[in-house]
């Protein structure tokens, strides 16, 4: 422990030099920007910057990459809250209550709780990364396909709180997402399913296309449809600060979000979405006023935003301790390590402690910078709502189109984006919730693959899901979550 703190202090001393601080600043600014842009994520940004950073020393480069990664998690929430158009998958859940808050004139408060929550969770998760990285990653390795399957089932239970006003329409949305997830090559056999002979569909439908299509393009079309030249909703910016009540309602979700996000980030499987779904589930289930959710509950912003930042820190645990990339950004960072002739793996902590500890130290600093950068900006960003709607939505459509095309350089993706946009618009008109569809597309293929892997490893024995302790516990928790409202109803207490 003492040794760890000493190493961290040395890292801080190295990170607090002017060039390193400057690179962190460049990184957080760039990261925030790419978080806001639809379709452009931190993975692509780091990949694009790799050749340009080759002549930098590795420490500076990694400080910047870490800062980009953290920054993107902060930036993602902004458009989600203000415009109901999440720029990346980690902030879809934020849009539900964040956008409702913005429409009530509480945009600045929502942005503030997102920024502070990100800071709190990011910092706590970085502390956990500092102190417990090696034992945690050893634990994560015990997760096998059966356990991952159980985890996806647990995540599926969060759909119960995302269904919206009608269970049937919510389930329809979920199945639509699951059906989209069927498209593409079946990972285990390599054969194509539902690709209709189109090579561009072989890799399936990108979740980012679905998210931008349903949310950004769908919202634009819906706004044009309903408010075309009709009476424009008055927009109020409201106070820029969080009230005392906001703080009271936010701090627990921040901590819970961190507790949910960090471990799920470590597991080399899910992306940033699963922790946000589970955090939203937890907040709604633990709330005294579950009816407020969907109507602008600040807990519904605070929890998921904390969770996605904690997960970002969690991803670094297997990367730094084992050399295992568990997200797209981590995979690119692994390439970057190799570019400098470093072998990330079990020996990195002992072979290059200076690099590892400076990187970790700079994550603390990056978090502080992001808070300082984003908190005053919350009020400024909120003013974005004063831009005339026609220009705002015109701009959103242009940026969404460029982002979607540049993902795979495919016109088919662009066509798909608009088609999904039309569907998203229709879903809004007919009151079908959007989030279950995203949940289905993210979790469906994962659940299927892990199930089949587990069964193949056990040679066809399905009992593995109950004989493996981790898997059994997760499945029991999932069953309890589903059963709890029923039990409560039987007892006569409101769910």
């Amino acid at each position, binding site marked *: 422990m003492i040794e760890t703190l000493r190493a961290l202090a040395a890292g801080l001393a190295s990170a607090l030099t002017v060039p390193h601080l400057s690179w962190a600043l460049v990184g957080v600014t760039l990261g925030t920007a790419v978080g806001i842009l639809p379709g452009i994520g931190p993975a692509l940004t780091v990949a694009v910057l790799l050749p340009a950073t080759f002549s930098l020393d590795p420490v500076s480069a990694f400080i910047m990459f870490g800062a980009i990664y953290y920054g993107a998690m902060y930036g993602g929430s902004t458009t989600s809250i203000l415009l109901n158009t999440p720029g990346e998958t980690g902030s879809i859940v934020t849009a539900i209550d964040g956008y409702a808050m913005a429409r009530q004139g509480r945009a600045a408060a929502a942005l503030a709780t997102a920024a502070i929550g990100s800071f709190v969770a990011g910092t706590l998760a970085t502390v956990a990364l500092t102190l417990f990285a090696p034992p945690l990653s050893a634990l994560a390795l015990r997760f096998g396909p059966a356990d991952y399957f159980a985890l996806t089932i647990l995540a599926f239970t969060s759909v119960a709180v995302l269904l919206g006003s009608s269970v049937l329409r919510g389930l329809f949305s979920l199945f639509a997402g699951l059906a989209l997830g069927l498209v593409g090559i079946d990972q285990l056999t390599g054969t194509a399913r539902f690709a209709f002979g189109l090579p561009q569909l072989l890799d399936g439908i990108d979740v980012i296309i679905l998210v931008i299509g349903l949310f950004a393009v769908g919202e634009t079309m819906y706004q044009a449809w309903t408010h075309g030249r009709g009476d424009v909703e008055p927009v109020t910016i409201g106070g820029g600060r969080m009230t005392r009540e906001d703080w009271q309602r936010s701090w627990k979700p921040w901590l819970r979000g961190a507790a949910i996000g960090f471990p799920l980030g470590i597991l080399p499987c899910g992306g940033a979405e699963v922790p946000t779904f589970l955090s939203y589930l937890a907040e709604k289930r633990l709330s005294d006023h579950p009816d407020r959710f969907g109507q602008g509950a600040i807990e519904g912003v605070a929890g998921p935003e904390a969770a996605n930042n904690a997960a970002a820190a969690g991803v670094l645990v297997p990367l730094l301790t084992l050399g295992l990339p568990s997200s797209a950004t981590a995979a690119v960072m692994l390439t970057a390590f190799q570019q400098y002739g470093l072998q990330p793996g079990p020996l990195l902590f002992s072979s290059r402690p200076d690099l590892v500890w400076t990187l970790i130290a700079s994550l603390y600093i990056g978090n502080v910078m992001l808070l300082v950068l984003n908190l005053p900006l919350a009020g400024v960003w909120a003013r974005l709502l004063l831009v005339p709607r026609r220009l705002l939505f*015109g701009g959103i459509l242009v940026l969404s189109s460029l982002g979607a095309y540049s993902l795979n350089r495919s016109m088919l993706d662009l066509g798909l984006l608009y088609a999904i946009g039309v569907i998203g618009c229709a879903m809004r008109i007919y009151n079908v919730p959007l989030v279950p569809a995203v949940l289905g597309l993210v979790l469906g293929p994962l659940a299927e693959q892990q199930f089949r892997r587990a069964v193949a490893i056990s040679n066809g024995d399905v009992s593995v899901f109950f004989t493996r302790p981790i898997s059994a516990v997760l499945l029991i928790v999932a069953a309890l979550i589903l059963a709890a409202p029923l039990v409560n109803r039987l007892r006569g207490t409101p769910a």
Partner: protein
Amino acid sequence: MSQYRLLPSAVLTTVVACSGVVVCAAQPTHEQLRIVAPAAPGGGWDQTARVMQQALQQAGIARTVPVENVPGAAGTIGLARFIGAERGRGDTLMVSGLIMLGGIVTHRSPVTLHDVTPIARLTGEYEVVVVPPSSRFASLRDLLDALRANPTSVSWGGGSAGGSDHILAGLITDAAGVSAARVNYIAFSGGGESLAAIVGGQVDVGINGYAELSAQIQAGTVQALGISSAERLPGLDVPTLREQGLDLVFENWRSVVAPPGISPADRDRLTRAIDAMVHSQSWREAISRYRWIDRYLPGEAFASFTDAEERRIRAILGKLGTNQDTVTLATAGLYPMFVLAGLAVTGIAALIAGLRRRQPSTSAARRWRSAALVGAAVVLNLVLAERVGFIVGSAVLFWLTARAFEERYPLRDALIGCTTAVAAYVLFARLLDLSLPAGVLERWF
């Protein structure tokens, strides 16, 4: 165009007074050489493309070398697009290799490597067979004995189905005299996931590239049973498969190809550029940094090598795939049926329950007018984006969308639309270095 291409580095260097990114190009023979990486950032092909980018620029062979990622389906999506969209272009290259051959066979790709112009094989990477330290297999012999006794009792973990790891698992089983059709191979997506399953002992045996595994072998988190090289590697105490009685040598080679239909002169120019590149210092450094093996083989020799490899891979994948594991097949069909049935049931039930529409505040005629404008906007963008360019497409998209909301300011909106389109284009294509078709405005951007 060249000065914009360097913007990412220019931004970095100017923001902080810390220079060092010096791109010197005395008299490059190529103004621009585009490289397509048919994979997502982070993988072996992307690494190869970016190393080539660096080497070609630093050695002054080409002034600018943009890399484009077209990921998916073991490179076959990139291959199909390369053949369709780049035909006849003498300034474009694509990274390819053994995994693409596997993908072509597995995914029944309509296009193959016969449809492109071969330039050269570049590198190779050996594969290693590993087990967790606590494994019941202490040596390759133990593993082979278990395979011969009951092939399906051994679970193999590695990368995607039809990829290099899967192929080697088939070759080993085949060489051991066991039917490759009974290999219980568990495909994982990407390096990280399969590495975690191997190190975590979730599968009995793991296969992966030597570069990915070397750190794990060094740290003792996995035990290497054999390496697929012909001779032992210097400094690595791992026996080859061959010296343990399996007559097989295998490497995951990577190569570079040009589009079909290019002129012989262009082909010579590209071959010379690659020849100069593999002899450059930065290429040599990169090879040792990434632990690749130099497997440079240009021209016709490379073409006949590809043919031989294709025959070998078709044969082994045929054996692996003739009788897919019954467990895998049984579970493959159930899930899609469940999902489609669920979709139909919930959809019909929701329809019967009645759809309540939100009451819009505007009249039907106005709504349809707005819908028609937005519809026209997106259709025009789809038509214009690749033909006339993204700037024109975006400007039209912006203008029509704005008019769907408000029709009072046509001129002002057109002006703002053009500005937004140019700004967005510069942001994506120049600052973020993502290539977008500039179309008719190419000369100005």
